[in-house]
């Protein structure tokens, strides 16, 4: 057995220079991928007070700016992962450290706002950042309507500092009758329609409702209230759906009720790609699923994301392959993009699908997802192609602040890298 040899005595933790938000920072010489525009071979990204102020080939760097030399490196927007439970769940089970599921009433928990309990100190956040992810959506799970999700920036601050958009969407699902507390899919869609129609009726006749002059409504008032932005077409309803028929039924419901939806999962979405494109409904899907895991997903295939993109659908790549991509492995989002390329998506589209497209899907493209003046300085400097395993995120900036503190995993490695241990 070949023995690996130690060549560097310490962990590569403190990547200088450390910069903070109240500075002007110039990232110079790197291959810059603004995403909202064409790549710049040797570009500069200028940051002031946490925001991007200039991006280009001939940007003048003001005197006194902190420079980060990105020569030979690749510079991209921070990645946006729309499918996480970061800060809500610390340990999946057996530890009482799970804030992602509400009890609700009859499988409806529309008023549930899980981010109230978001833990900014979660040890799962630094590894996600080390994988170049700077913005995530956190979603509740369970029932027919799980509750509201938020978009958060992975900065080192309080929960309120982190919030980017809250609520960002309403989470629901149309792929499990059991979770929805019904017996069949037709019953599920009937119930979902009834819920939304009741919310709309409640919104129109709040005064009557309060005076008891509206017919009895079998839903909690707080849930109806929470659904008002959904039925008003302001807040997207994110529906987990895999089967093509379920996606079509979701599209029909959305058209009927004139609401905005986003499809998540979407195993068989490629079979209805044209309809999704025509309805301008974004799809959140993974690029590493090809197993007919249930009778809802017999058409699962790895080309799904590429085929959707080809049809003109807005695709946001998410990890949903069962490898704990929602928590421990949020850091793996970039490999989802790489695998999408291996199965037919263009490299540029794959980068877009983990940056700008997810921002667009939830209406925050004026804040994150690209390198352009005015946007938050969520920037990653990579040692090479960000989708490759051999590549590392060398600098990660969130709202202009670089993160260099070791993660809990780094600390464990430091402690155990030389065996046997002494005095432990």
């Amino acid at each position, binding site marked *: *057995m*070949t*023995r*690996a*040899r*130690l*060549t*560097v*005595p*310490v*962990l*590569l933790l403190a990547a200088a220079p450390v910069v903070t938000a109240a500075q002007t920072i110039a990232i110079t010489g790197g291959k810059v991928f603004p995403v909202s525009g064409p790549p710049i071979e040797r570009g500069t990204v200028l940051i002031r007070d946490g925001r991007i102020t200039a991006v280009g080939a001939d940007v003048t760097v003001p005197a006194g700016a902190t420079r980060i030399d990105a020569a030979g490196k690749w510079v991209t927007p921070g990645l946006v992962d729309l499918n996480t439970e970061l800060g809500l769940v610390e*340990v*999946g*089970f*057996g*530890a009482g450290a799970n804030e992602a599921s509400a009890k609700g009433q009859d499988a409806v928990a529309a008023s549930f706002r899980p981010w109230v309990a978001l833990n900014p100190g979660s040890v*799962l956040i630094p590894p996600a950042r080390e994988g170049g992810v700077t913005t995530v959506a956190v979603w509740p799970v369970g029932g027919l309507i799980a509750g509201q999700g938020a978009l958060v920036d992975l900065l080192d601050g309080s929960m309120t500092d982190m919030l980017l958009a809250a609520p960002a969407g309403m989470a629901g699902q149309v792929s499990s009758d059991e979770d929805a507390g019904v017996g069949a899919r037709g019953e599920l869609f009937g119930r979902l329609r009834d819920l939304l129609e009741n919310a709309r009726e409640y919104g129109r006749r709040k005064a009557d409702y309060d005076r008891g002059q509206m017919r009895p409504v079998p839903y909690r008032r707080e849930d109806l209230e929470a659904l008002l932005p959904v039925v008003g077409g302001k807040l997207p309803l994110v529906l987990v759906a895999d089967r093509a028929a379920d996606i079509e039924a979701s599209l029909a419901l959305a058209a009927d009720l004139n609401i905005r939806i986003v499809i998540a999962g979407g195993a068989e979405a490629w079979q209805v790609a044209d309809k999704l494109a025509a309805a301008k409904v974004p799809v959140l899907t993974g690029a*590493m*699923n*090809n*197993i*007919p*895991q*249930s*009778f809802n*997903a*017999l*058409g699962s*295939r*790895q*080309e799904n994301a590429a085929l959707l993109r080809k049809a003109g659908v807005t695709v946001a790549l998410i990890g949903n*392959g*069962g*490898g*704990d991509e929602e*928590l*421990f*492995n949020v*850091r*793996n989002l970039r*490999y989802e993009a*790489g*695998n999408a*390329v*291996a*199965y037919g998506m263009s490299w540029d589209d794959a980068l877009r699908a983990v940056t700008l497209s997810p921002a667009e899907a939830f209406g925050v493209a004026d804040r994150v997802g690209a390198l352009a003046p005015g946007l938050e300085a969520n920037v990653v400097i990579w040692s090479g192609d960000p*989708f*490759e*395993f*051999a*590549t*590392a995120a060398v600098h990660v900036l969130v709202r202009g602040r670089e993160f260099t503190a070791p993660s809990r*995993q780094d600390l*464990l*490695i430091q402690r*155990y*890298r030389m*065996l*046997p241990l002494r005095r432990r």
Partner: protein
Amino acid sequence: MRTIVAALVVAVLGCAPAQGARPVGPTPAKADTASPPPGPGALSTPNADPFPSTYTPFPSRPTAIRNATIFTATGPRLEHATILLRDGKVAAVGADVAIPADAVVIDGTGKYVTPGLIDAHSHLGVYPAPGTEANSDGNEATNPATPQVWAEHSVWPQDPQFPRNLAGGVTTLQVLPGSANLFGGRSVVLKVVPSRTVQGMKFPGAKYGLKMACGENPKRVYGQKGGPSTRMGNVAGYRAEWIKAEQYRRRWDKWNADHKGDPPPRDLGLETLAEVLRGDMLVQMHCYRADEMAVMLDVAREFGYRIRSFHHAVEAYKIADLLARDSVSASVWADWGGFKMEALDGVLANMALVDQAGARTVVHSDDPSGSQRLAQEAAKGLAAGRAIGLSLTEEDGIRWLTVNPAWTLGLDDRIGSLAVGKNADVVLWSGDPFSVYTRTDKVWVDGALLFDRSDPAEQWRTDFELGYVAQPGGSR
């Protein structure tokens, strides 16, 4: 598919006479005989093989892959090299290989060749897709000690996950019972090949494994069902069974030696444990935490058996020196952790740190999706090791995927490397196997081409997929 179907017919017909090779099969009784003699099932015989493999290699043609980068898994990579497969074996590998006139010649320019990958931890067939209650056959969660069950009796050969695994370059799998029990039962080593029966997939001559499990799972499953409900209860449970097994082994070894008196009563569970004590079976132990692994090493010492591999072993890096000392491999994920308390301390550098300490790193999956992308898992492990300054080569990563799991299954004399005479289980990759953009082009098992990405006719479709999954299904 035409070729494989034709080959299947040949294989099934062709190996029918081989049924006669059953080592201890009863002689067919004459119709007029009053009662047939007792079968071997009355006795507890070491290395009995009551469900023998009926696998025979699929028809193959001599095949040469030329001008490729070849990872043999035993030495440094060979550039611009040729490998010749003939009669199911690696016939030659190197820079100057004479290509016979009758060989199929494949241009490997810009491509890579590796041994077939080996997944030492799979539940394919016992937890098939689609996941249904009806086919959920992986955990006999009725008693904390069920060494009497055999995973092969749960395997559904039509699990559509098998062909996807083959397309991912995996040619050998260890299918294990689940981890609900302290003693989960026997594992089975399968070739990833189309077959009507599990016997037709069984790796001829492979040793059995015994699945055992530490930690949270048994105590969670049995905590409210009579126990164990604690880790100390788990350990008492292992020891109580081994005490019984040792008595059983002595009694039967004595009887098998002298045949004096009535044979002792046969017990399927104790028979499996006795096989471990005799060294005929390899212990494959699900264990996450370093401290629990250390306790299990002591239990093994107490009863005189060896643990071949700790599976999942997210804390292997904390005791990699102990694993090296006792020659126990660590079958691990690249990056899973945190999903329960015993997985809390998972680190990306686990694979690299275990390797650095001189123990065997094995990339395993425990997952039908990860199993298709084992090289990607190794790539993550390599990168993590390099990031903390370890000097690791791609050759190291290849060993984690091939020779080390082959050793874990006791099959490193036959598979896991591309030395001359080894089984011709070979993968042709479109590029560097550690790149995210690389896919498998072709996969051979015992020299027979069983997957060809460029030819849908050479892509195995299970019975289940017919009519249910449109061709080309999955990634294929």
